[in-house]
């Protein structure tokens, strides 16, 4: 029988969707029965008291969690978030209920063995409740006490080869799409660069370094499956500089119905015969495609990489061969200045497709990292110049995107050594003044006053 009456929470289970309340009740039941005979290291009633505390929050219309705390593992300034209840006497099993962020594996590829190990650890030393995954991508383990932290950290790092993720004013756990492991649209190896930058910036990931949080996310193509453009301070989106590859014979097969549109993704319903004009050409946002005399052509100069035509006809249209990334900066969720998408700062940074050696090709991981440092030198240069600028100029708790609004995109471009280009322009200028810098004016600010006076009386 439930320890606490939870009529308000029970309402949340009545809707059409699976409810987290049902999940917590299920785990409370598992812990009460303890059929595996687990020697629980935090109170076995943690899930029951969590339900009770949450019910009270719904009743009172306010949270009963305090804000933060001094908890962590030795040497790390992130990955653990202190959570204390302000009702410890009424709900003693969740008086301390700290959160642990565990770095997710690249592209979230797990083995079932890893997941079993993780749950064995978490049922023993925590509440058994997880959030798979947090917004940044981490595996979030919900609810444990301070004495368990070092034990959990030891098992994660020594037995599972897994590290804590980022929290606080740190670099947050970088996140990537599945990339070239399964997707033909991926313009670069998202998992490789994600791993490389994670290893390269271990100090920034585990210890506070910045005015506030900083997120990298890696999308292999402009379909943006991890939504890096909306969710990361520095977004990497795969793109190409040459032309979309066109196979005219395959185009014809889409038109005659041999090839299913969208790789058959919508075949559960009869949508009628494929209509190239209605489904592709007329939907091109820049109207840069035409089909004449049995031939599809694309004016690539006008293409904005919306990916629609490639998504609809993947057998006929292929991403270009000269591949790299676009870098966008400053995306963030609301709070200050409202939500914003990333602004394009580096339109194209080529990633050498011939540099494709793997870890197995090297004597040691150090040698592989040196190779990757050379491969991604351009990316590292942009990252570190952005960080130097933000660390110098950013106010406390100011995201990069907010600093960009405060000081202007031009300042950021200056700091990373990027010449402004037409693609950086978001809208026509609203400020009628032009402020010249001394080095932009012939002769600078100095003038020969005697020469001036020859032509201008005092």
């Amino acid at each position: 029988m439930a320890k606490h009456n939870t009529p308000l929470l029970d309402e949340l289970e009545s809707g059409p969707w699976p409810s987290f309340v049902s999940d917590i009740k299920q785990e409370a039941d598992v812990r009460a029965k303890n059929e595996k005979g687990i020697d629980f290291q935090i109170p076995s009633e943690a899930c029951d008291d969590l339900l009770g505390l949450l019910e009270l929050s719904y009743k009172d219309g306010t949270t009963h969690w305090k804000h933060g705390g001094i908890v962590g593992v030795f040497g790390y300034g992130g990955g653990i978030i202190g959570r204390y209840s302000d009702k410890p006497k009424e709900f003693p099993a969740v008086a301390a209920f700290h959160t642990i962020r565990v770095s997710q594996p690249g592209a979230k590829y797990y083995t079932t063995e890893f997941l079993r190990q993780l749950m064995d650890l978490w049922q023993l030393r925590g509440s058994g409740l997880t959030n798979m995954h947090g917004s940044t991508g981490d595996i979030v383990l919900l609810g444990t006490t301070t004495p368990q932290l070092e034990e959990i950290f030891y098992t994660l790092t020594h037995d599972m080869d897994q590290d804590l993720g980022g929290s606080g004013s740190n670099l947050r756990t970088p996140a990537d799409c599945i990339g070239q492991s399964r997707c033909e649209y991926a313009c670069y190896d998202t998992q490789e660069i994600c791993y490389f930058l994670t290893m390269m910036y271990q100090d920034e990931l585990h210890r506070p370094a910045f005015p506030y949080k900083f997120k990298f996310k890696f999308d292999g193509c402009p379909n943006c499956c991890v939504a890096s453009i909306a969710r990361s301070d520095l977004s990497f989106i795969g793109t190409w500089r040459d032309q979309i590859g066109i196979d005219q014979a395959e185009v014809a097969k889409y038109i005659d119905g041999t090839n299913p549109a969208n790789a058959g993704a919508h075949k559960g319903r009869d949508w009628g015969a494929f209509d190239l004009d209605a489904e592709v050409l007329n939907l091109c946002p820049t109207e840069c495609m035409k089909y004449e005399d049995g031939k599809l052509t694309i004016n690539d100069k006008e293409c904005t990489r919306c990916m629609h035509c490639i998504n609809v006809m993947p057998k006929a249209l292929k991403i270009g061969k000269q591949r790299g990334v676009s870098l966008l900066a400053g995306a963030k969720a609301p709070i200050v200045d409202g939500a914003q998408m990333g602004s394009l700062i580096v339109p194209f940074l080529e990633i050498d497709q011939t540099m494709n050696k793997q870890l197995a090709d090297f004597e040691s991981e150090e040698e592989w990292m040196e190779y990757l440092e050379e491969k991604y030198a351009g990316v590292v240069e942009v990252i570190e110049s952005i960080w130097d600028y933000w660390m110098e100029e950013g106010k406390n708790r100011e995201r990069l995107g907010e600093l960009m609004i405060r000081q202007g995109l031009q300042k950021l471009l200056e700091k990373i050594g990027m010449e402004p280009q037409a693609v950086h322009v978001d809208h026509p200028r609203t400020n009628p003044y032009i402020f010249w810098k001394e080095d932009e004016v012939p002769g600078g600010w100095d003038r020969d006053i005697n020469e001036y006076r020859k032509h201008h009386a005092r």
Partner: protein
Amino acid sequence: MALEKEEAKVVIVDNLTKKLKTKSKFYLKDFYAFFPGEKPRAVKNIVNALVKDEVLEYWSSGSTTMIGLKGMGKQANAEGEGEE
């Protein structure tokens, strides 16, 4: 000029102790002000090294990290989490 850890430690402990009456936790950027002219990255490295040496300690809300002298401000035992 490279920032010497022991000299920096004296400056940091001195500055934080003076401010203890009003607050026990500080933003990383507050530490930059103790070392005018130093690169933020150099100061950040010293602060993190002093946490490792247990002179300073982190406090985290989850989204923001603050730093204070070890043992100052509200500690885990004050939250009812004592030694086992």
